[in-house]
């Protein structure tokens, strides 16, 4: 029997985060037909707001509010970390790969958790930064989406995501720590609880929002754009505007999910936000659950993550049975299986477990009754 502790708090956060990402991808790909193959970038933006930007803001606040302590911190760190004399301010040092861990864990975290006002304000600011970053990059991505066919768009979004995450953020050490990554600013004394509650609220909001949109006139317009762009534009719908709105909203959801994921891990490295686990896996989830069905996205996310977790749990016996090193079982075999699984679903049941349902409209009999009542 499985030990239940393998489904820990951090697993629950991962689950809720993936539910949110799958829901947001479903808004784009399932309902509007935007093949977003660069989803990992938008998830990473939330992580970047929590680490690269978050530590800088926190260090800046620390310097402003407690200048003596900050100066002391800087001299302490300079003594501990070799070659540290190059930093002129704590902000600079906080985002440096060598000094980041000490500054965040020994100075910034105690400072933040000791002062409730600072903590709340900082959380709000970093969340706002996450939203702003997501909207900015969503705007850039939708600039291409306005004018390209879906196959070109898929290529461009994939290239854009890969370029930003693997080249810009990964190669530039001063942005997000490069190869080593950075420790993130976490909140409360139990960050994992904060992440759990936050991601749960986010997942619920994402589901309610997606359901509401899907069953609104906007949702029906989105499906019309997906099914026949020309027909939708003939009927006077502004396709560019619809795509823009959808991409921006979905990007914000994905980035917030990435933020809470980073909160639960307390650190993030650009390289771990790769195409396989943050673009392909959410795609796999919505295909399994059913494109353009929000409940399906949740079902897909839960099914995939539980399967993946069990696989990681049993990686040693599986590795022994197949004569493969256990760590390769954990990292390579799940990817192969997910790939095979997707092909099988696409072949056997392209519509997924829960097929797309007719969008709920207002009950027309009730409308007639109201109409009759008004006339009386």
């Amino acid at each position, binding site marked *: 029997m499985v030990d239940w502790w393998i489904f820990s708090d951090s697993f629950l956060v991962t689950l809720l985060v993936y539910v949110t990402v799958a829901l947001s991808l479903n808004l784009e790909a399932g309902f509007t037909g935007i093949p977003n193959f660069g989803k990992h970038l938008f998830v990473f933006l939330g992580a970047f707001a929590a680490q690269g930007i978050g530590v800088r803001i926190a260090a800046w606040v620390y310097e402003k509010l407690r200048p003596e302590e900050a100066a002391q911190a800087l001299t302490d760190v300079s003594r501990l970390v070799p070659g540290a004399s190059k930093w002129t301010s704590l902000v600079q040092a906080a985002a440096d790969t060598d000094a980041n861990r000490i500054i965040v864990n020994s100075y910034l975290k105690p400072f933040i958790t000791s002062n409730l006002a600072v903590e709340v304000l900082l959380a709000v600011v970093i969340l706002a930064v996450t939203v702003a970053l997501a909207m900015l990059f969503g705007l850039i991505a939708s600039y291409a989406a306005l004018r390209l066919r879906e196959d070109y768009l898929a*290529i461009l979004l994939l290239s854009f995501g890969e370029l930003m995450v693997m080249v810009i953020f990964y190669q530039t050490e001063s942005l997000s720590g490069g190869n080593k990554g950075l420790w993130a600013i976490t909140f409360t004394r139990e960050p994992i609880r904060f992440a759990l509650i936050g991601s749960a609220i986010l997942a619920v909001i994402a589901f309610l929002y997606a359901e509401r949109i899907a069953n609104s006139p906007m949702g029906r317009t989105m499906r019309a754009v997906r099914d026949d762009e020309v027909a939708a534009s003939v009927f006077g719908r502004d396709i560019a505007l619809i795509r823009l709105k959808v991409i921006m909203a979905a990007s914000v959801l994905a980035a917030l999910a990435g933020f809470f994921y980073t909160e639960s891990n307390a650190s993030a490295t650009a390289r771990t936000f790769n195409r396989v686990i943050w673009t*392909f896996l959410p795609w796999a989830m919505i295909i399994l659950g059913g494109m353009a069905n929000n409940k399906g996205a949740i079902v897909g996310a839960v099914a995939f993550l539980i399967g993946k977790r069990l696989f990681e749990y049993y990686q040693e016996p599986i590795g022994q049975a197949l004569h493969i090193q256990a760590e390769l079982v954990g990292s390579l075999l799940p*990817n192969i299986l997910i*790939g095979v699984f997707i092909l099988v679903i*696409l*072949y056997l049941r392209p519509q997924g477990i829960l097929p797309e349902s007719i969008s709920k409209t207002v009950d027309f009999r009730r409308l007639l009754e109201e109409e009759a009542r008004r006339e009386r």
Partner: protein
Amino acid sequence: MAILPGFTYTLNSIAYAAAIGLLSMGLTLTYMTTRVPNFAHATIGMIGSVVMLFLIDRVFYDNPGWTLFLAGPLLGGLAAAAFSVFMYVAILRPLANRGNTIIGLMIATLAVDIILLNILTLILNEVPGKNIPKLIGAPIIGFQPKIKIGNWVIDSYTIVLPLAAAVLAVAFHLFLTRTSFGVAMRATIENPDLASAMGVNVSLVYTVSWAVSGFLAGVAGALMAFAFKGVDPAVSALIIVTVFAGSIVGGLASVYWGLLGGFIVGLAEKIGTTMINNIYKALFVAHLGFPNISLVNYEKVMSLGLVVLVLLYAPRGLAGVDWGRLASRLGLRRG
């Protein structure tokens, strides 16, 4: 300070560009015939690299010579072609027949990419080398015949790769124009229904186009293996970005423009970035106090930038540009 890159670097860049050109050519071909952007294309090329690595380890370890340069690309190309055909016949065609949309097919190629990449990585990790102790990441740059011109020692793959690209392009052109099957292929690309009505076996043409595409990728991959510090299939994740860039710059509508587009993008990525980096170092860092970072790491920005430029100003790629009209407008030609 010199703006132009060094001689060896230029040769390496040309070889890289030729490999990207071959990959873009194959990608364009399958896109033209079956309308699927193949996200697994670069990883299919990696099959060629893996075959090359195994050939060196098992057969040519003691006497690597020119036979290696003949056998490697040929066997690597055939292996990649076999996989490519398998991918089309056993995966994509059934999926298309089941009524999957273009998005479904793109996801399927992504799935194949992930499966193939992880299987290749698994093989290189788990299969013990006969002579090379650890196959994954093993550098094979030393296993090539050296060409000496005066004091210069040239990596022979830098000569062989562009030559191979040229030979394959000419051979493919002859195939398209001089054989009846090539004519049938062109007809199918123009209008599949009409070609089918005229008795062309469209499905066979599609299969052959996937085979050719895989072969080109395998040849490129086998020779490109020498360019990297070590053979690791994971490099395909970034190569595919450049290959798509090359195809889009070419226009995804002509195989030759695909080859040229890939070549241009590959050159811009290597030589263009180096020149910009040299200018940056000489001017901005030395005189204006800009941070001393290496711009060479950001070479992929170049390829995506070219794509953006092409999509903005020539949405149908270089293949769609009316070159005669452009020349006359620029005053290069009358009329």
